[in-house]
Each structure stands twice: as C-alpha cells, then as structure tokens.
C-alpha cells in the first residue's frame, strides 16, 4: 500500500464481523431496553480519529447501504472517517441531516438541534434517526430517568453533553411516539436514551 490516503482508508474494521456485530448490537439493544444502564462494549477495532471505537462498533454493527449516515463537523472534517464508514459499512454519507437514519456525533457539546433530523411520522414513528453521541464519562447522578425499561427511577449522567440537554430531551419526549433515539458511546460502554425516556434534573 504505497498511497498514504488508501492506507488510512483501510484501517481495520471488526476482527470478526459476525460475532463482533452481534455483541455490539446486543449491547445497544439492552442499552435502549434499560435506559441509562451502561452496557459493556468491547470494541476491538481501530477507527480513524476522531471516531471513537465504541461509536465505530455501533456504526459497523447497525449501518449498511440502507442507512444514510450524517457526520458532525469534527468527523466530517476527517476524510478518513467517511472513507472508513463507506468501506466497512457501505453506508452513504449525507450532508443533509434530514436525510440521515444514523448520525455520528464526536462533539456532543456543539451538536445541531435534534429537530433537524428525521423525527418519524405519526403513522411511522420508526422512520426517525438514531443519534450516536461520543461521550467520555458515565455517572449515576446528575440526571434522573423515568419510563419504560426503568424500575421506578434511575440516576444517570454522561459527559460531554449539550448544555441544553435536559430541555432537548423534554422537547423530544413531548413528541412521543415521534422523536429521536440516542445511543451514548464511550468509556468502554454504551448507554441508551430512547424517545420514551423522561429526563429530569437529579
């Protein structure tokens, strides 16, 4: 491989596409089924920066030619990220957030408004985006979660998140059954915040 760009584009994907994809999906499934509970995600792959291993594992497990991916500014600025996703997942990269089925967000603090993404329709609420936000930390206090999948209430925190995160999640919940679903990936794990969850101040 003499061309440096070609070498970068071919950073390795999953060691074992079948079982690594299954394990990553199962982590994401339990994360959404039990909002706020962090599921372990052992991502054995080396994606190009600034794409994190955990976010890359979810993208490769869930995306293919049927799922246009939107990248936030830091990811879109790295051509190797788009090349990595095109090569390993075969997914189209889109510039219009309204056309995305998945969105990868490396800098959650600067993410555009959630309403710019597809929210689903009253007839087909499933036709909405899944946002994958890269975080560096998970905690048990700060936010209080309530809703399907949670016995009573549960404490949760993650960082970094948008400054107006609670307001965004309240607006998202108000749209139910329409709305976006969040997977927070990082620190060796994944946590889910589906549209059904109610996020309150802790």
């Amino acid at each position: 491989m003499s061309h440096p760009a070609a070498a970068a584009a071919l950073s390795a994907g999953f060691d074992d596409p079948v079982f690594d994809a299954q394990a990553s999906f199962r982590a994401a499934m339990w994360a959404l089924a039990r909002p706020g509970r962090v599921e372990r995600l052992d991502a054995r792959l080396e994606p190009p920066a600034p794409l994190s291993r955990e976010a890359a594992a979810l993208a490769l497990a869930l995306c293919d030619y049927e799922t246009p991916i939107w990248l936030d500014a830091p990811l879109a600025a790295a051509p190797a990220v788009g090349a990595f996703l095109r090569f390993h997942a075969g997914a189209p990269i889109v510039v219009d957030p309204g056309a995305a089925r998945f969105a990868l967000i490396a800098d959650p603090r600067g993410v555009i408004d959630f309403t710019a993404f597809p929210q689903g329709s009253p007839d087909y609420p499933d036709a909405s985006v899944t946002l994958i936000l890269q975080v560096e930390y998970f905690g048990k206090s700060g936010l209080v979660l309530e809703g399907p999948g949670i016995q009573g209430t549960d404490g949760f925190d993650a960082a970094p998140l948008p400054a107006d995160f609670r307001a965004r999640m309240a607006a998202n919940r108000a749209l139910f059954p329409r709305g976006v679903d969040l997977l927070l990936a990082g620190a060796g794990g994944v946590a889910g915040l589906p549209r059904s969850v109610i996020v309150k101040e802790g």
Partner: protein
Amino acid sequence: MSAQPISSMPRSSMPDITYNFAYLDEQTKRMIRRAILKAIAVPGYQVPFAAREMPMPYGWGTGGVQVTAAVLGPQDVLKVIDQGADDTTNAVAIRGFFEKTARVATTTATAEATVIQTRHRIPETALNENQILVYQVPIPEPLRFLEPRETETRQLHALAEYGLMHVKLYEDIARHGHIATTYAYPVEVAGRYVMDPSPIPKFDNPKMDDCPALQLFGAGREKRIYAIPPHTRVRSLDFEDHPFKVQHFAKPCALCAATGVYLDEVILDDKGGRMFVCSDTDYCNTRQAQGHVGELGVPAEDAA
C-alpha cells in the same frame, strides 16, 4: 477454516452444508436489529420489517425465528416452547434448527435459558432481567378483525383512537354477560399503544406487566416486529364495572398438584374421562422431580 484450496482437500474433510451463524445473512440481521431497536424505543408500536422466507412454513414461527436469529449469540442458551411444551413438533423443530445453524446450547429449563422463543405461552417460572422472551405472532394487529384496512388501522394507532376495541369488548359483555375474549386479549403498553400480546391465554397477560425480561414479538407473514422493554406498564383493557380477570381452574394439576398455573385438558378415554395438567411441561416436570404428586401422578421414585 483454513484457506486450503478445495480441490486439494480430502473428500472426508469437505464440510457439510454450512450456514452463516444462525442461518440469516448479515445484512438481513442488521435490518432486523434496526427494527428491534426502534420497536424497543416505541413500546407496543409495530415496526414494519422485510421478513425473509424461512425454511419453514408461515404459521410455524417464521417471525419469531427471525427475531431469535438476529439477537442470538454464541454464548446464549436457547429454550423453545410451543403452548408451554418443550417436546412438541414446533418446539423440537425450531430448537433443532438453531442447534444446527448456530450451534448454541439449548435447554428446557426456564431458569437456565437466556433466550426463550415461545408460541402462545409465557413460562410459569418467573423470568429474570437477563432473559429475552421472543413471541411468535400470527396476526400482530389487534384491530385487524375490526378494521381490515391497514391504512385505517395505522391512522387509528397514530391517533391513539382505540374506541373500536372497547366497543368490541362491550359487545362481548352485551352478548355473554362478561368479556368472552380468552386469548390474544388486547393490552395497552406504557400508556400509549394497544397491542396484541399474540395468542397467549389471558391467564398470562398479568405476567407481561413490569416483567424484568425483554419481550420481543415477531410476525413473519405480516412482517412486523414489536417489543415491550423490561419493567414496562402493560394493562389489559377492561371496564370499571367489568374488571379484567384471569381464568381459574377448579382442580390443581393432575400430575404435580400445582395451583395458580395454566392447565391443559387431556382426554383419557371415550367415556368422558379427562384430566387437567400443567401446560408448562418444564414447570410440571420440575415439580414432579421435587416430589409433588397430583391425583393421577406417579411419585417420582416409582416412575423410573
């Protein structure tokens, strides 16, 4: 598998027909997995998915099999039941299918399983938070027999307009004096969607409420997947003056003397002889092994 050219391999080492893990190809699994994630995010809503043809006829659990294939991993322990029984044709066939295509461990013990595929029952043993219960669903749309047009039922769900279902239950009362629906009894999930719990007896409906396990529903012919996350409120529809009630049985299980379980009627002869036994074979066998003996049962030590 080694990269040895096939022509140089001795004939005996040629593999039998091999399948991708759990039969389905990876793109199909991803498509089903995405549908499962959206189904979990909108509890009770039926997510359309591109169901594949499976090597078994419609009505034999093609939807459940596809959901199981999409979630199954090599560490899973699979249990398959058909009307509560581990040893009936449908259960044996599907268990064999995954033993062959995924080489996963299988069990009949409810407590040992991590994935339980079921046709028309929820096990009597309480489920735990590490289990996934996969239902086989024939008709996923609870309003289908009241409104045949998909465009209309979709609108009714969008508007949460479920008056039609209450009229149906009311007509039951007007005609029979009580709600005569005994299986596939409609439920409201998380206060929003009305859902068909698949043809489980209404006896099992209360087990869906606040269940610690994840419940997934797959309808192959109708191409729908829906879900109930753990610890979700599932309410059987009823009226204040006609509250939801489950079946009660006059006598305990004839083999293991269990009470408070769902019983099947077994005809014994052509003179009206009959007995009622647990529909959940694993539960019944476990109780018999523990020394419980019903009126027609044989003590465990004598049985051998």
